[in-house]
């Protein structure tokens, strides 16, 4: 149980949750600081075993967890974990709120069923959109190109291997004996050097040797992206738009860490055409709500030329148009700009991949927008031509001298001829059965009430 209170990245490398920026340890601590109450945890591993009930505090002097209570209780469920924390805070609405956070969680985690009761005692139920669980990420050894000096020294100290060559082949992924020898040569170290004898200076030489060696990219099965289909489905639930698309990029690597970028876009419909596009950012399926301006994702959106794809954009700004853009980075190690885990760091490899993903969805978007525009223009042209059909019919009536009934007939025939020569007018059908109105409402500010208030204020002002 105490494991929960440590960071998870020191002993395994695989994509996992736990990067929300406020981890379980911080949550327990925060509850303790604001209400003074312990975290209450009930856990049951199988029907054969009884459920355990713990009360947990953090000893802030020694920075250790402290079990206040440990009891066996009855819990009428097969298995599961229940955590209760009492926290003091303001219940807000808007783009940086708990509501918004939960909603965005639902968009990218369609396999999750979530019941949310807010402080107004309103219960919200988010049904799972798919029964398919995402594949469990595989744990991998670190890739040599991703390792930092401090960690390398730590690894050298803790290893059971006896030679440098064995250390390299056994503790890292993608290193065979050939590559290990190459690293040793580039670092000017003997392959049979004892790992435990390597000091800081030599470790630095070794790191330099690693950076000089070409090593195959790390395996990518350690990453579990959301997938194009599910990402699009999530967008459909949240936004009532006309056009949706999503893409998953092939895995790429920055500093030895594999990562996968996914992007999606929802265009048109009920979204405001005069506002900047909405950008939803995710890191390993966790919404990023703060520090949008400092994030590599935002930078990549700005640096993409959206005018080519049918959205307007001023230099150095987010594009303007009725659209929502989703970008998700999935990696064993998401590089944040700071410990608060609010914005993605600006690695060129990551920015490049995000841009490629955006260009992919952008191209699909532009095809749709151009088609829509073409149909609109064609419709306008037809109705323009049709304005003059009665005049042609009337003029012919004067010239040929036919009857009133013939005039009606000529009008009808001219419309048929127009249809025949210009072809049938295409229509874009919009239907979105996945759209969830209740979900879309969550976290939005109640604009109507605000407006009412201001008009009331104005009215009273005027009276004075």
């Amino acid at each position, binding site marked *: 149980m105490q494991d929960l209170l440590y960071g998870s990245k020191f002993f395994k490398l695989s994509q996992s949750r736990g990067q929300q920026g406020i981890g379980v340890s911080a949550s327990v601590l925060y509850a303790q600081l604001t209400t003074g109450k312990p975290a209450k945890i009930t856990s049951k591993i199988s029907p054969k075993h009884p459920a355990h009930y713990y009360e947990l505090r953090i000893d802030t002097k020694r920075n250790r967890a402290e079990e206040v209570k440990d009891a066996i209780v009855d819990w009428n469920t097969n298995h599961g974990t229940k955590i209760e924390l009492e926290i003091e805070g303001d219940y807000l609405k808007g783009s940086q709120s708990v509501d918004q956070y939960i909603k965005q969680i639902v968009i990218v985690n369609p396999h999750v069923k979530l019941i949310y009761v807010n402080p107004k005692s309103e219960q919200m139920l988010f049904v799972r959109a798919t029964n398919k669980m995402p594949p469990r990420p595989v744990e991998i050894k670190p890739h040599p190109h991703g390792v930092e000096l401090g960690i390398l020294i730590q690894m050298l100290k803790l290893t059971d291997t006896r030679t440098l060559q064995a250390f390299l082949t056994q503790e890292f992924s993608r290193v065979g004996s050939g590559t290990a020898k190459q690293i040793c040569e580039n670092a000017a170290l003997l392959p049979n050097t004892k790992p435990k004898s390597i000091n800081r200076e030599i470790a630095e030489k070794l790191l330099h040797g690693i950076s000089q060696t070409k090593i195959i990219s790390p395996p990518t099965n350690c990453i579990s992206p959301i997938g194009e289909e599910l990402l699009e489905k999530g967008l459909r639930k949240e936004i009532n738009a006309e056009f949706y698309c999503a893409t998953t990029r092939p895995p790429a690597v920055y500093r030895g860490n594999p990562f996968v970028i996914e992007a999606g876009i929802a265009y048109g419909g009920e979204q405001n055409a005069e506002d900047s596009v909405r950008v939803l950012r995710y890191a390993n399926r966790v919404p990023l709500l703060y520090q949008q301006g400092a994030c590599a994702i935002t930078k990549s959106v700005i640096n993409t030329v959206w005018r080519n794809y049918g959205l307007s954009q001023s230099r150095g700004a987010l594009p303007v148009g009725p659209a929502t853009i989703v970008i998700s980075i999935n990696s064993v190690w998401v590089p944040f700009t700071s410990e608060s885990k609010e914005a993605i760091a600006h690695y060129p490899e990551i920015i490049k991949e995000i841009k490629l993903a955006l260009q992919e969805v952008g191209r699909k978007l532009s095809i749709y927008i151009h088609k829509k525009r073409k149909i609109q223009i064609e419709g306008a*042209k037809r109705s*323009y*031509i049709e*304005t*003059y059909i009665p*005049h*042609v019919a009337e*003029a*012919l009536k*004067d*010239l*040929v001298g*036919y009857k009133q009934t013939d005039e009606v007939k*000529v009008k009808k*025939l*001219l419309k*048929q*001829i*127009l249809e*025949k*020569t210009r072809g049938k007018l295409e229509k874009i059908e919009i239907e979105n059965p996945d759209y969830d109105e209740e979900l879309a409402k969550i976290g939005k500010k109640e604009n109507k009430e605000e407006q009412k208030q201001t008009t009331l204020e104005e009215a009273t002002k005027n009276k004075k």
Partner: protein
Amino acid sequence: MKNKVLEGIKEKANNVYRKILKKKAPELDLPLRSLSNVKYDEKEGYFEILGKKKERTLTVGTIKTFAQTLRMMGLSKQLIEQDDIATKREAYYVSKNWKEAMFKAQPESDTVMDDVEAMMMVNREQLGFIPEEKGGEIAGKLIVVDRDPETKKELKIDCTKFGSGAYSIPISVEHLKFETNAKFILAIETAGMFQRLVKHKYWKKANCILISMGGVPTRACRRFIRRLADDQKLPVYVFVDDDPYGIGSIYRTLKVGSGNAAHINKYFCVPQARFLGVTPQDVIDYKLPTHPLKEVDFKKIKDLLKNDPFIQHHKPWQKALKQMQQMKVRAEQQALCRWGLNYVITKYLPDKLKHPEKFLP
């Protein structure tokens, strides 16, 4: 004659109607009225229209004018049947009742009217339309034989007896006859220069007929000069400003017609016209005061050299225009006043008329 035009209009309309009944896109083919659709043959003496057509049918670009052309044909049919006339301006106002198909400004309705005229290959008077423009003015040794509109009796008008005024060319000139012993016709661009020559009875001194064109000559004016010159076998000399407009628009249109009226140039041209002045060389020879050519003038010169079949046919004209291009200046008829108000009468015209063979073609 009128019936033939009427039948022609009905026939065109019936073709459109029949096409519609066959569920085919109806269209009207109209001759293209532009310089790109004329050829110039010196023997023929005018811009002859070629076969290029423009089509009006159920497309965004042409549907409005398609409807308007049919409407205009309808108006013409009504005028012919009721033996009535409408001025170009009146026709424009009639269109105000056509809702979406109305003309926004008179040039639009004039264009469609000219299109109908070209389509039927007739003169607009035959369609029942008449212009409002004045035809030009005459002074000098000419007796015009007209008819009294009421009594239909012959009426002789002596153009020497208008004092300081002048005889106005009527809109229709086909019925006129002429008596004269003058030696030549002098067609003048500006009313001002015409007034000066009338005031001093220059026509008596030079034994000629003076005609004021007032800019680009109207159809009536061109037809009048043509008939008079043909009838009395008189040479026609043209006296205009030295600028691209005087040469390329006024003189060229008088002599061979225009692109815009390509379908009727045959009747409205004066092939015997010759260019007396003012030439670019005159500016040098008579040391005339000048104005610099503007951007539009240079453009017009370039356009004339490149696109005008008349200029392209005559080397001397190309030379003259290139000379103007190099001199970068233009000169007005009135510039001759530099040497005295009547220098034009005492020196310039007599000098020039000594050598009509030197006039530009």
